[in-house]
């Protein structure tokens, strides 16, 4: 039997009176690109933060590549994370940020290919981060997440601040990573992007999985050809 890349069992999390996750169960097969979608406050961010260890669940279990996550942060070697809104210390240069994160990951991969494709040459990397645009910072973020070829990529709205050319580079890198066997967990509000990139869709409502299947299964179950309309149908049914 193949080990799941990610297994979430009975995950619960409440912030005061607000319940974000209600016993969420999810199994993600290795090598799949899975998009996590849902309305606002569905629990997408909390789920991702639990996987990354940023949020401590009240109950439940998460297993990454067969390793149950606990207090030992070592499992995060296997995860490349790309947050939606990258912010780095203002006075460091892009190169220093890349070197710092490589040191922390004990990672000697340069990411030269991705740096070249994003046009991040050493002149750009020598500038203080505060002078870089949001898109350039997001490119740095992508290099950090992808360069060590981690087996699990967690990407939170990865193309949000990228221009079409950089977005294309990122999507190519994502596809390449998936072809090389990486598992990708992706959140996006752009359904065309989900349709373009994802193999599977997880639809969350009120902290639980309402639908988990392939794009074709989604189309079949909703009777809609377009993913955007299929998701809209799921939203209407959940309302």
């Amino acid at each position, binding site marked *: 039997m193949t080990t799941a890349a990610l297994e979430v069992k009975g995950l619960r999390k409440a*912030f005061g009176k607000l319940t974000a996750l209600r016993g969420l169960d999810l199994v993600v097969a290795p090598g799949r690109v899975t998009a996590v979608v849902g309305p606002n406050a569905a629990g997408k961010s909390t789920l991702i*933060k639990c996987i*990354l*260890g*940023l*949020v*401590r669940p009240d109950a439940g279990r998460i297993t990454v590549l067969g390793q149950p996550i606990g207090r030992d*942060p*070592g*499992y*995060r*070697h296997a*995860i490349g*994370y790309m*947050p939606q*809104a*990258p*912010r*780095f*210390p*203002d*006075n*460091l240069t892009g190169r*220093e940020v890349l070197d*710092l*994160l490589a*040191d*922390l*990951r*004990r990672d000697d991969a340069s990411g030269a290919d991705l740096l070249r494709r994003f046009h991040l040459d050493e002149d750009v990397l020598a500038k*203080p981060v505060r002078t870089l645009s949001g898109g350039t910072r997001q490119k740095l*973020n992508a290099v*950090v997440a992808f360069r060590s070829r981690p087996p699990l990529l*967690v990407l939170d709205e990865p193309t949000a601040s990228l221009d079409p050319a950089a977005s294309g580079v990122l999507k190519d890198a994502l596809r390449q990573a998936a072809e090389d066997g990486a598992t990708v967990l992706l959140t996006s509000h752009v359904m065309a992007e989900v349709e373009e990139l994802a193999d599977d869709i997880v639809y969350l409502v009120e902290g639980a999985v309402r639908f988990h299947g392939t794009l074709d299964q989604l189309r079949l179950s909703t009777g809609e050809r377009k993913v955007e309309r299929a998701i809209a149908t799921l939203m209407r049914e959940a309302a």
Partner: protein
Amino acid sequence: MTTAVRVLTFGLQNQLRNRWILGYGLLFALLTDALFRFGGSGPRVVVSLLNVVLLVIPLVSVVFGTLHLSNSREFIELLLAQPVSRAALYVGLYFGLALPLAGAFTAGVAVPVLLHGGAGAAGLGTLLFVGSVLTLVFTSLAFVAGVHFDDRARGLGLALLVWFAATVLYDGMVLLIATLFADWPLETPMLVLSLLNPVDLGRVLLLLSVDVAALMGYTGAVFERFFGGGLGVALAGLALLAWTVLPFLLGLRGFARKDF
């Protein structure tokens, strides 16, 4: 290189290019230089700097510490998503800010002192020591506030309240007690009260180090006898150590349990 040292190194790199930190050091340099030019001798400069150190260092440390933690929120989340322990990250973040702050103060005072030939001034060492310890203490308190509140305004509000309580309210309370119980022998309670507030403890140590205790009359003599003895030095050291370590551990505990 361990995670904490690496994070500390990047913190130093970042802060040493920070104009606010450089301006903070420059402020002390200009002030110390001006006091030498207008005030004269080393001990008088130390006494003149006393109130600035006791008010400004806690204020700058709490404001800077709280804002730094709040502004670094997204980057801290990115670092926590790497294979690093929360404790190591906290240690690195804390010293990555507290050391540049203490360094800016120390350099800002020491350079003009050396230029004016006041290196041997009585109380100078104590001034630098007290200023550095207050930086560590109030940066810790700022981190406690920053860790506890996600909202920047509330964190900053709590940090400023702590500063106000330590530098103004506490003295008011001590004065009230001294007035209400004027007929009672208050030297020992005053000693205890001065140990319970790092700002007051710093003030007493500084005043005693520049030999102006006589100005405080009988109380000054009691303080001088107490802090001049082995037990007094040990208790003062223990109190400063507690003020340095306990808020740090409180912040670390909060950081380790925090949901980001």
